[in-house]
């Protein structure tokens, strides 16, 4: 990957001028910005206005508005964050619009592992956490746009906490490793969701736990997190066998109980 060019003037959309490059290994198209509203917004703009190809990546050094799921602010300062977005065009039906959330988190966890980072788990629906102490290491957000009966485009925004070591070489390693995993998992979706979702479950620290979910707009749901169903919903089972399925956009907060 080439080094960033320092932008001189901001573009009309509020972002700095991008520098474009292609990954030497994957020929991935990459746009890099010193500053932008968010990586996801730039990725969506690229996808919608310029037909960004599958795998196109936007890297932003300083996000002005690093919002994740439900508009929650990413708490780590920009200089200690690796923030990027990847445009994907997965083979998913409209009913499977939650799946990109899980695929994104899975790719981050697998990419961090491939890059030699300490072990991590996914935490349904949007987090990647330290396997030892459960602290948040990364968060994902999936902006999914539907076409007739199918997912037209999904832009995965990824933010990784780099505060322990903001070394630029580590950033590039992670960027490439996570991007590669996301490409691989997205391609696998053409064969069905079973394989990627099984891999997600295997890495997911939420599965097998008793949970209290706070729902939108109100209310709560409790149960034992059993599996993720083919639509990406979390299945909660009660002691008497009642099964409830919760989609990503129904959940305000997840609390793990003893």
């Amino acid at each position, binding site marked *: 990957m080439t080094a960033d060019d320092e932008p001189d003037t901001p573009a009309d959309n509020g972002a700095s001028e991008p520098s474009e490059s292609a990954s030497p290994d994957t020929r991935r198209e990459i746009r890099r910005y010193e500053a932008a509203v968010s990586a996801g917004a730039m990725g969506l703009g690229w996808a919608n206005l310029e037909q960004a190809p599958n795998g196109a990546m936007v890297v932003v050094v300083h996000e002005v508005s690093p919002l994740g799921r439900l508009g929650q602010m990413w708490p780590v300062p920009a200089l200690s964050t690796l923030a990027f977005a990847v445009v994907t065009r997965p083979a998913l039906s409209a009913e499977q619009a939650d799946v990109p959330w899980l695929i994104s988190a899975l790719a981050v966890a697998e990419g961090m592992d491939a890059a030699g980072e300490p072990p991590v788990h996914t935490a349904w629906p949007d987090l990647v956490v330290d396997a030892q102490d459960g602290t948040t290491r990364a968060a994902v957000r999936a902006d999914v746009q539907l076409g007739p009966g199918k997912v037209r485009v999904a832009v995965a925004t990824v933010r990784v906490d780099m505060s322990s070591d903001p070394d630029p070489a580590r950033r590039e390693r992670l960027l490439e490793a996570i991007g590669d995993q996301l490409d691989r998992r997205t391609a696998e979706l053409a064969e069905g969701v079973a394989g990627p979702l099984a891999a997600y479950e295997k890495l997911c620290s939420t599965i097998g736990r008793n949970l209290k979910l706070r729902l939108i707009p*109100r*209310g709560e749901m*409790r149960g034992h997190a059993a599996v993720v169903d083919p639509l990406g919903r979390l299945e*909660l089972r*009660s*002691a*008497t*066998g*009642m099964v*409830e399925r919760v989609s990503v956009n129904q959940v305000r907060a997840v609390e793990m109980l003893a």
Partner: protein
Amino acid sequence: MGAPPDEVARTFVQAVAWGEHHLVWEMLSSEAQRVVMGIATSRGMPEPLAARLRDGTATQAELDQFRGDLVNGFRADLLGVDVDTLEYDVEDAGLEPGTARVVLVVPVPDPVLGSGLPAASLELRQESDDWRVERLVPRHAK
């Protein structure tokens, strides 16, 4: 002799919160079960299905669906109530023998407001030495 009314109420509320749909059903009094079935049929449940549920010949999926809906109905009555902090106050004054009322109280630390705010109440009836739930009365109901 079974558990006292406050313990029965606590178990019932936790069963509702955790979706233990068969336990919730079994904790209802026979009269409450009859009323629930009546409400279900009045709201459009097909009579053959109601008959299967009454006879015990319904499929597991039908049973799960019906009792799951029942649990979600109770959850709606308890919406916004933090069931983990509830206190259970038994009232038996002025009630007919074999019945009890348990008030579900949300504790309030401010002494000016009193010791707690009632969120709902459970009316219980004794059946075969056990306390069963007759009805859940939410705070907003009269």
